[in-house]
C-alpha cells in the first residue's frame, strides 16, 4: 500500500518530451532512494493551473509545486520524502475545490484522465447534510454574489467563463441570462431542467443525488442575475431518491435562510419548488416543459418567442440544465477566467458522460472538453469488452448519432461532434462492438422517438412512424431497392419541418448510421444478410450433416416442428417452416448447427 502519491501534470502547451523525461527521472529517483514501496508516481490531467510548466502534487498532503524540474524533484524527494522537512520553494496554494477529487480516489488509471468540476462534490460529501456542503464552501458563491456583485457582474463572470448549456444545445449561458434579465416583466422565473430522458443517461440524476445543494445554489445565483424570485426544478417522478434529496436540500436551505425570503438578510428573495414530470421524453424540450408546469399537456410550441422573453405563464423564464447550474457556484467562487482555462476555444469547462455499452469500465465520467473519443473509450473506459473490435460510439442518445472508428480522434466538444453528424447531447455515450448491427441500433432509437413523439406536428408524428416501418422491413429481410434513399429523404424532411427539437433530431441516428455504415444497410436490403447476426429474421440455420449425430435434441425443442430426421442420422431444417428463433442453435451440444 502506497503511503504517498506524486502526481505530475503539464499544461497543454508544454513540451511532451520534456514532461516524459521528468516523469522517468522522478520514477528513477524514487527507485534509487528505495521509496518504491511507499511512493507511487502518476500522471494526471492538468486541472487548475494555467502556466506552461510542469506541476507536481503530493498526496495526501495536497502540496502543489509549480515550475518543476530535476532540482525541485531532488529537493522534494531528498528533503521531504526522506527527511520529512517541508519544501516551500515553488509551492503554491491551489484551489481545493477541484483537487479534492484526486485526493480521495485510489483508482488512478480510471480517474486521472478525468476532471471533476460539475461533480466536484459527488462521492465526497454527504448529499443530505447542509453542514457537509458548508464544509466545501457551500453557498459561498451565493453570499459573494449578494454582497459584492451586481446582477450584471454575475452575468459578466459567466460570460468570461464561456459556459454553454449542458443539456446538449450548447447555447451560451450568459446570453440566455442576459435575454432573461433584459426581458420586460415583473415576475420572472428560473427553471432547472432535470427531465433527463435519453435511454441510458443518468448524469443529472447522479449530480442531484450526489450534490443537490450545488444545483440549488446555482439556481439562486441565476435568479439573482436574471431578477427572478421564483424557481422550479422540473424533475421526473422516476427519480425518487433524487427528489427526496432535493426536497431535503430545499428544506434545509429554506430553514437556514439560504433560499426563500430575504436571503442572508438582503432584499433578494428566491423561492424554490419542485415539479414532478411523468416521464414524457418531449417534456425535456423547454416549451413542452413549461406547458407541463402550467398544468397543460406537455406539448411544444413554436419559438420565438423564446422562453427567456415569454415563458412560464407568459413571463420571462430562464431554463438551464442541471449540469449547467451545478457549474455556476464554482465559477463564481473562483472566477470565470479560471473556468475558461479548461476545455478548448469554443467549448469551455468539462462535460459529464454516462459511459455505457461494450467497454470495460462503464460509469459516470467527467472530462475536460477537447478530450478525444479515443481517450475516453480506450483509456478511461479501458477498451472494448472481451477483446472485441470497436465499431462505433453513439453520443446524444435518440437525438444523436453513431461515430465510426475513423473519427475516434474527434475531440469531444459541441462543434466537432456536430460536424460528425452526431451531437454532444446531454451526455449519453454508448460504445458498440462488432457484434452490434447498425440497422438494429437505428431502429432502436427511432422506435424510442417514435413512441415519444407528442403527435402535435405531422412530420414528426407520421414521418418517424414511416421511417420506423421501413427500418423494420429492412431488418425483416423485406427491404427494397430505394429504401435507403427514401429514409434519407424522409429524414431530411422531418429534420426541416418538425416543430421542436425532438422531431428535428429524431432522424439523426438513422441518417448518421446510413452515412457511415451504408454498406451494412445495403447488405440487409440486397443480400438479406446481417453481418452482426442480430437481425433474427435474416439468419438462416443450417445443420452440418458431417457434425450432426442425430441426438434429436433440436428436433424436440423446435417450437415450429421444422426439424426432421431419423434417430442417429443427420437431421435437416425446413427453411420455409423455420421461424428463426435460434433455440436449436443454442441447444445443439455438437456445434452442428450454424447461423448464416
Amino acid at each position: 500500500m502506497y503511503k504517498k502519491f506524486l502526481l505530475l501534470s503539464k499544461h497543454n502547451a508544454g513540451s511532451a518530451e520534456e514532461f516524459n523525461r521528468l516523469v522517468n527521472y522522478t520514477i528513477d529517483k524514487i527507485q534509487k532512494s528505495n521509496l518504491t514501496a511507499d511512493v507511487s508516481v502518476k500522471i494526471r490531467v492538468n486541472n487548475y493551473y494555467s502556466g506552461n510548466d510542469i506541476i507536481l502534487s503530493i498526496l495526501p498532503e495536497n502540496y502543489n509545486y509549480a515550475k518543476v524540474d530535476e532540482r525541485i524533484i531532488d529537493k522534494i524527494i531528498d528533503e521531504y520524502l526522506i527527511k520529512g522537512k517541508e519544501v516551500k520553494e515553488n509551492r503554491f496554494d491551489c484551489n481545493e475545490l477541484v483537487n479534492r477529487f484526486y485526493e480521495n480516489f485510489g483508482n488512478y488509471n480510471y480517474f486521472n484522465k478525468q476532471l471533476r468540476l460539475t461533480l466536484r462534490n459527488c462521492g465526497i460529501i454527504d448529499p443530505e447534510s447542509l453542514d457537509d456542503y458548508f464544509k466545501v464552501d457551500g453557498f459561498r458563491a451565493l453570499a459573494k454574489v449578494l454582497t459584492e456583485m451586481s446582477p450584471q457582474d454575475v452575468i459578466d463572470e459567466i460570460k468570461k467563463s464561456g459556459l454553454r448549456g449542458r443539456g446538449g444545445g450548447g447555447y451560451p449561458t450568459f446570453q440566455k441570462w442576459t435575454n432573461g434579465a433584459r426581458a420586460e416583466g415583473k415576475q420572472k422565473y428560473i427553471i432547472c431542467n432535470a427531465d433527463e430522458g435519453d435511454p441510458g443517461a443518468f448524469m443529472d440524476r447522479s449530480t442531484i443525488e450526489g450534490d443537490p445543494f450545488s444545483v440549488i445554489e446555482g439556481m439562486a445565483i441565476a435568479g439573482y442575475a436574471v431578477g427572478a424570485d421564483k424557481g422550479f426544478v422540473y424533475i421526473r417522478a422516476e427519480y425518487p431518491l433524487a427528489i427526496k434529496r432535493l426536497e431535503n436540500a430545499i428544506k434545509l436551505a429554506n430553514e437556514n435562510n439560504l433560499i426563500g425570503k430575504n436571503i442572508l438578510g438582503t432584499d433578494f428573495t428566491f423561492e424554490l419548488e419542485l415539479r414532478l414530470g411523468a416521464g414524457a421524453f418531449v417534456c425535456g424540450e423547454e416549451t413542452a416543459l413549461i406547458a407541463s408546469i402550467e398544468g397543460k399537456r406537455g406539448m411544444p410550441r413554436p419559438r420565438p418567442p423564446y422562453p427567456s422573453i415569454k415563458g412560464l405563464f407568459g413571463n420571462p423564464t430562464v431554463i438551464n440544465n442541471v449540469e449547467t447550474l451545478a457549474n455556476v457556484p464554482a465559477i463564481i467562487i473562483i472566477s470565470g477566467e479560471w473556468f475558461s482555462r479548461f476545455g478548448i476555444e469554443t467549448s469551455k469547462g468539462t462535460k459529464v458522460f454516462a459511459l455505457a455499452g461494450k467497454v470495460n469500465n462503464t460509469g459516470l465520467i467527467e472530462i475536460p472538453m477537447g478530450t478525444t473519443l479515443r481517450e475516453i473509450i480506450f483509456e478511461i473506459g479501458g477498451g472494448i469488452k472481451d477483446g472485441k473490435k470497436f465499431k462505433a460510439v453513439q453520443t446524444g442518445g435518440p437525438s444523436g448519432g453513431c461515430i465510426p472508428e475513423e473519427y475516434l480522434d474527434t475531440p469531444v466538444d459541441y462543434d466537432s461532434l456536430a460536424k460528425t453528424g452526431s451531437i454532444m447531447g446531454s451526455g449519453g455515450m454508448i460504445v458498440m462492438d462488432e457484434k452490434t448491427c447498425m440497422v438494429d441500433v437505428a431502429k432502436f432509437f427511432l422506435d424510442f422517438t417514435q413512441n415519444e413523439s407528442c403527435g402535435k406536428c405531422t412530420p414528426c408524428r407520421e414521418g418517424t412512424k414511416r421511417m420506423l416501418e421501413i427500418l423494420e422491413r429492412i431488418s425483416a429481410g423485406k427491404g427494397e431497392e430505394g429504401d435507403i434513399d427514401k429514409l434519407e429523404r424522409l429524414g431530411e424532411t422531418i429534420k426541416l419541418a418538425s416543430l421542436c427539437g425532438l422531431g428535428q433530431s429524431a432522424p439523426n441516428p438513422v441518417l448518421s448510421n446510413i452515412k457511415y455504415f451504408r454498406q451494412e444497410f445495403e447488405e440487409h436490403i440486397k443480400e438479406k444478410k446481417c453481418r452482426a447476426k442480430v437481425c433474427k429474421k435474416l439468419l438462416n440455420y443450417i445443420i452440418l450433416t458431417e457434425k450432426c449425430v442425430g441426438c434429436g435434441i433440436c428436433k424436440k425443442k423446435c417450437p415450429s416442428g421444422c426439424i426432421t430426421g431419423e434417430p442417429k442420422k443427420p437431421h435437416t431444417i425446413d427453411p420455409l417452416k423455420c421461424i428463426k428463433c435460434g433455440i436449436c442453435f443454442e441447444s445443439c451440444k455438437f456445434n452442428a448447427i450454424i447461423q448464416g
Partner: protein
Amino acid sequence: MSNAFERWQKMRNAAVDRIDKMKYERETSILVGSATCENAAGSTKVYEAFKKELSGMPDVYLGITGCTGRCSMEPIVQIYKKGYLSIKYANVKEQDVKKIVDEHIKNGRIVLDLVLAEN
C-alpha cells in the same frame, strides 16, 4: 448590521465546527455510496451491516456519499484513516463487512482483494 457574506461566514464556521467534530476529526471515517445505482447494487444492506458491526465503536464515523462514478464496481465503500490515503473497496457485499471492520478498521490491515485499485 452585518452583510450577507459575514452572515454566511458565521453560519459556515458553526457548520464546519459541527461537521468536523462529527466526521472529519474522527480517527476513521467510513463512507458508503448511496445513490440509485449504488442502492440497486445493494449498498443499503452494506450500510446496515456496517451500522451493526460498528455498534459500540466510538471513534468511527459512518456516513453516506453520492455516486463515485464506478457504476460497474458498486457498492463502493471509502475508508479514511488519519494519516493515510483513502481506500476504496469495490463490489462490497454484506458478508464482506465484518472482514473490513475486523481487519481494516480495528487492525489497520487493508483487505487487498476488495480494493478498487489499479491493475
